[in-house]
């Protein structure tokens, strides 16, 4: 279960986003411009960049309890029209009770001419207001910006009563930066955690400030299937701590004990819980069977009000009071994600199991590392149950996650099992490819004009099903059908779908199923005497997984999966197979395998195609993360998959049947 952020954190993150997304103020005068910077014709840090920051400075003064001050000073070299367009308009948004002061900006043209921003050209607007909350912005357009020019601007943001606790300092931006510096004058007890900053650390500077500097930072570019942004971007996390020297082991140990104390009351076994148990357990005798009954009960009989499919409106959800205990959740037959997990814990406890609340990182946000001693990084919680000598993990709050699995963001993560005396760390298990299967079948007929028509079904299990259910649950039937149509027509634009059935969308127990009738004019290509047919119907028109030649970030898959296809195609009268050779199998050891069989019925009228592919096997608890340096191999592997999926067989008019 993903832990909700407190309102405090939400407002703080809004503040941080606004405060640091734009930036500074400070010195009385502009710093001298290096003629070499003015003469610069090409970017220093990143080839082909449109603009590049020569320096980007933020001076954070948190030494006064009455205010937090952030002074920003940015100097940017513009190289081309795109750079001019993206950099010459500046918006400085801020919360209504904050202040933006001391804005100054100027442009140094390539010939050295300086054009200052007129004070009258700074506009203040209330961006949005509601119920007394205001967000404002100061905006300006820099005059006379042209390729080759340097622009610079500075400002100061003052946050009355603000604190730098939990502030995120972004080091990588949308443009490359030659030198980025953060100056920090903290209140007592400030600590920081750097991410991807290399050797860069805060060092003592003047006037009570410390300074962290990095040089030659490329712009941050998103790529498909990359690890979470916080795992690849350079940034620093600021936080306050009362302790003089922070020992992560001790920190987590103390936290594990505190959380245990709080959680034991939340999972209290009351008489109501005890009396409900026998009916829930039924005839289950083994520990696994008992836990599954409890798990499925919590998913099917208790409505999760945090889910779209509850049928409750936002107003109705707002009116719901918090459940005070598992008994309360049991009685109301609905609850939040947290109260459902706690009900599961209470029932399991009542059934005699040792049960603990467990905390872990959330891979959707960031890969957790327990050397980071701050609860901020623990994004998920679930329930650990001791079965024999092992801890097993459950989160029935994840309505669509099957028994025995956690949601993928919690898999393969270090998890803190709370305890009154000795909390312990365990690594959560990761489901193999056999747990998340996309099983597709098609019974189709090919016409002699190349049209393919027939009935199709697609069945999803495991993480694949959970994602499909979560995506579709809140949609109307029309939206769900549109989603399916887009999926099919995205590969085969002429496909016509009818008799669509989508089953088990909100059923926690059954697989997610699509079934439909499809007609695809022009599926096979006709020449004078042949028909060319791609038997891999479910891959027809698909692109290779990776299209670009180069890669900056590692490649990361959320979870392992399997694809199984069974396609039968009735061949048109008067045609017979000219060739039906099958693609060759290939594999990457236990990680992945591809196998295809193509056969034909004895009368030569039916083509049978079976395909099985899986990816992510044999990894144990290792993440499916592949270094960018090995991108070529990975791309080649998936290119091969695409090539074999595009394998075509030939039907010839009026010849004898061939068979494999």
């Amino acid at each position: 279960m993903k832990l909700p952020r407190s309102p405090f954190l939400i407002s703080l993150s809004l503040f941080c986003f606004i405060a640091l997304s734009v930036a500074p103020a400070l010195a009385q005068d502009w710093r001298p411009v290096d003629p070499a910077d003015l003469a610069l014709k090409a970017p220093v840090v990143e080839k082909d960049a449109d603009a590049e920051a020569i320096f980007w400075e933020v001076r954070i003064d948190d030494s006064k309890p009455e205010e937090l001050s952030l002074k920003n000073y940015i100097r940017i070299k513009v190289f081309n029209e795109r750079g001019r367009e993206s950099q010459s308009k500046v918006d400085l948004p801020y919360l209504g009770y904050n202040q933006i002061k001391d804005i100054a900006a100027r442009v140094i043209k390539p010939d050295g001419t300086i054009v200052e921003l007129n004070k009258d050209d700074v506009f203040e607007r209330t961006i949005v207001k509601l119920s007394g909350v205001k967000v404002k912005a100061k905006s300006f357009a820099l005059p006379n910006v042209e390729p080759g020019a340097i622009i610079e601007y500075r400002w100061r943001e003052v946050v009355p009563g603000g604190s730098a606790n939990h502030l995120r300092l972004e080091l990588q931006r949308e443009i490359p930066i030659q030198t980025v510096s953060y100056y920090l004058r903290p209140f007592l007890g400030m600590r920081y955690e750097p991410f991807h900053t290399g050797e860069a650390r805060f060092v003592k500077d003047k006037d009570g400030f410390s300074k962290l500097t990095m040089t030659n930072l490329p712009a941050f570019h998103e790529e498909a299937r990359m690890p979470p942004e916080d795992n690849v971007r350079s940034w620093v996390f600021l936080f306050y701590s009362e302790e003089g020297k922070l020992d992560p082991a001790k920190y987590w140990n103390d936290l594990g004990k505190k959380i245990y104390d709080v959680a034991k009351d939340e999972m209290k076994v009351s008489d109501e819980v005890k009396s409900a148990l026998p009916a829930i357990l039924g005839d289950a005798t083994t520990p696994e069977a008992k836990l599954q009954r409890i798990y499925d009960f919590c998913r099917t009989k208790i409505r999760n009000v945090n889910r779209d499919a509850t049928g409750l409106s936002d107003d109705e959800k707002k009116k719901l009071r918090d459940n005070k205990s598992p008994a309360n959740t049991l009685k109301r037959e609905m609850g939040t994600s947290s109260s459902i997990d706690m009900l599961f814990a209470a029932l399991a406890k009542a059934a005699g199991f040792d049960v603990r609340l467990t905390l872990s990182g959330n891979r959707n946000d960031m890969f957790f590392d327990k050397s980071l001693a701050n609860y901020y990084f623990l994004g998920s919680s679930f329930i650990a149950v001791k079965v024999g000598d092992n801890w097993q993990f459950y989160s029935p709050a994840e309505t669509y996650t099957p028994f025995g699995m956690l949601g993928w963001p919690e898999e393969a993560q270090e998890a803190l099992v709370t305890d009154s005396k000795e909390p312990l760390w365990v690594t959560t298990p990761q489901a193999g490819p056999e747990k998340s299967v996309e099983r597709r079948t098609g019974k189709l007929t090919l016409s002699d004009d190349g049209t393919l028509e027939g009935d199709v079904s697609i069945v999803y299990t495991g993480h694949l099903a959970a994602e499909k259910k979560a995506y579709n649950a809140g949609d109307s039937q029309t939206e769900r059908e549109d989603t399916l149509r887009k999926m099919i027509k995205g590969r085969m634009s002429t496909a016509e779908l009818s008799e669509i059935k989508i089953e088990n969308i909100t059923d926690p127990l059954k697989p997610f199923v699509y079934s439909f009738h499809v007609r695809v004019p022009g599926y096979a290509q006709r020449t004078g005497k042949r028909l060319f047919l791609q038997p891999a119907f479910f891959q027809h028109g698909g692109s290779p997984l990776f299209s670009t030649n180069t890669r900056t970030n590692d490649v990361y898959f959320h979870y392992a999966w399997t694809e199984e296809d069974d396609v039968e195609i009735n061949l048109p009268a008067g045609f017979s197979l000219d060739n039906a050779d099958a693609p060759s199998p290939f594999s990457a050891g236990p990680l992945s395998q591809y196998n295809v069989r193509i056969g034909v019925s004895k009368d030569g009228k039916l083509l049978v195609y079976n395909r099985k592919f899986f990816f992510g096997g044999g990894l144990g608890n290792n993440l499916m993360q592949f270094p960018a340096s090995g991108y070529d191999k990975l791309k080649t592997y998936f290119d091969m998959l695409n090539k074999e999926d595009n394998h075509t067989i030939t039907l010839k008019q009026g010849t004898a049947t061939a068979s494999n």
Partner: protein
Amino acid sequence: MLHRILGFIVLTLLSASAAFAGDEAPAWLQTDAAIKVPAYERDVPAVVLHDEQNVTVNEDGRLTIVKTFAIRILNREGRALAEAAEIYLTDAGKVKDMHAWLIRPNGSVKKYGKDETIDQIEDANDVYNEYRVKVISASNEADAGMVFGYQITSEERPLFNQDIWLFQSHLPTLLSRYTLALPQGWRASSFTFNHSKVEPSTSGSTYTWELHDLAPIEYEPASPRIINLAPRIAINYFPSEGTSSSGSARSFDNWAEVSRWATALHDPQAATDDQITAKARELTANAKTELEKIQAIGHFVQNLQYISIDIGVGRGNGYRPHAASQVLAKAYGDCKDKANLMRALLKAVNITAYPVTIYLGDPTYVREEWASPTQFNHCIVAVHVSDETQSPTIVQHPKLGRLLIFDATDESTPVGDLPDLEQGSLALVVAGDDGALIRMPTTPPESNKVEREANVNLAADGSITATVRERAVGQKAADFRREFRKQSRATYQKMIEGWVTHDVNGAQVSKVEPTDDAAADRFTLDVEFTANSYAQVMQDRLMVFKPAIVARRESLFLTAATRKQPVILAPNAYTETVRVKLPAGFDVDEMPDPVKLNTPFGSYTTTYEVKDDQLVFTRNLTLRATTIPVEQYDQVRNFFARIRAAEQSPVVLAKK
């Protein structure tokens, strides 16, 4: 960035909005909610029960506007439609009262008022403008079967005694009504578009226009925009004869009046000074002809940054450009600023030019019969040229002579061409008494053309080495130029790699070299790549490959079986020649039949020829600017279906 922040903030604030106690809907909404609605197709998200605007004109010209609206949500897609929004100008109007109600099927009601009203900027792109919007959203609470309604009262000091009423959007509408209550003795007249004439009912000096039971208008690709499908009226109203309104608003009897009014706003701003003169001389120092001077100045102005800062819009400043000297000094401006600066720079080298106001978005939107500046949303320029200057974008004006039309805001369309959404549109040349509404020029398909040449070496193992050169002109070049300029070099490279690898499995792209020659209105792209297994080798005797090696960069559409609206095609042309060097030891066993399609709206041909171990494949597509009636949909659909089939057809080689 403000867009992202705005979205985030609104979401956060809305999620914090308060819950409600039991409320009551007003009588009018209860009546609307009781209306039995007809059955619609299941993808119709909602039906408008009641859409009404009551405009009361005061003697001083100020307006009091009451909007009343009710909608029944028919399915979950309709939830987003449970929203009230009112745009206002801070210096010329205010929203006095805004309330909304959501009625559930069980009759319970939620009322929305001031505490649930978001007041936000209307356009986050501008550095500054005075438009704001108040929004009440019930989309999080709404669901199928519910009725959402709102009533908004606002006041406005209009610039013109003119108004527009669109009777519906895409949604079916049961009642749509516009009422204009004028002071005693005033009168109104109207024009109806996209519908037979809607006559108002009158009571004293109150006029009411009304339509009932309007069917839904389905969205379809390449169809006319909603503004040209939905019925709408345009209204003029006038003070009683012999008197004049104490307000400053006005209406227009003809386009010359509009021209005179706009000229008074534009001309003083186009004054030249020493800086403008010096800049004009600098820009045209090497220009030998009139056209070269226009090109030099046009190129300079269109490459100034587009930045819009509108202050005093309610006082007409939205129609008045900033002074040319100011725009030159800051090197930025919006469309009217750029057109105005270009006029001033041309004037400095003794070339006369006029502003042209136009509607950007649909060339068929502007209607001649209603003289009104509110029909336009963009400003371009018309340059008076002598017979010496020749260009496809020259039009003949009855009084002003030969005018070269140019959009100084579109950075991708050089002098001599015009953005396709402006071609053929009616636009107003702003030239005092001589101003007139004229039709903008259109360019033929051949002027908007892509020519592609591909040379492919096919090896006996099915691998290929290929070079592709695309040369585009006209609006096709503008499309490619826009695509290139709007993305970083790295993103552009990835886009081209994705285009190639979509059709050529495992392609290794070794060269992506775009060359933008904007002055010559040409954009060239050179691509080189290799692929290990382009052709499929079968049983060591056959080799099969598609000669249409990479797809066109725009997709062919119109696959739906049925159609409700006409199809609009833009003029363009495409030609491709692919030369495939065949591997030694193979003969061509089968080639697709050539295709030749000829229709009134377009033509398409393919040819295949083998000569000296080389296969030459050509394809040519020409689409003419046409609006195809819905009755002929099958014809246009089949046209594109046959093209798709032809381009998938393989060539079969057999071992000798």
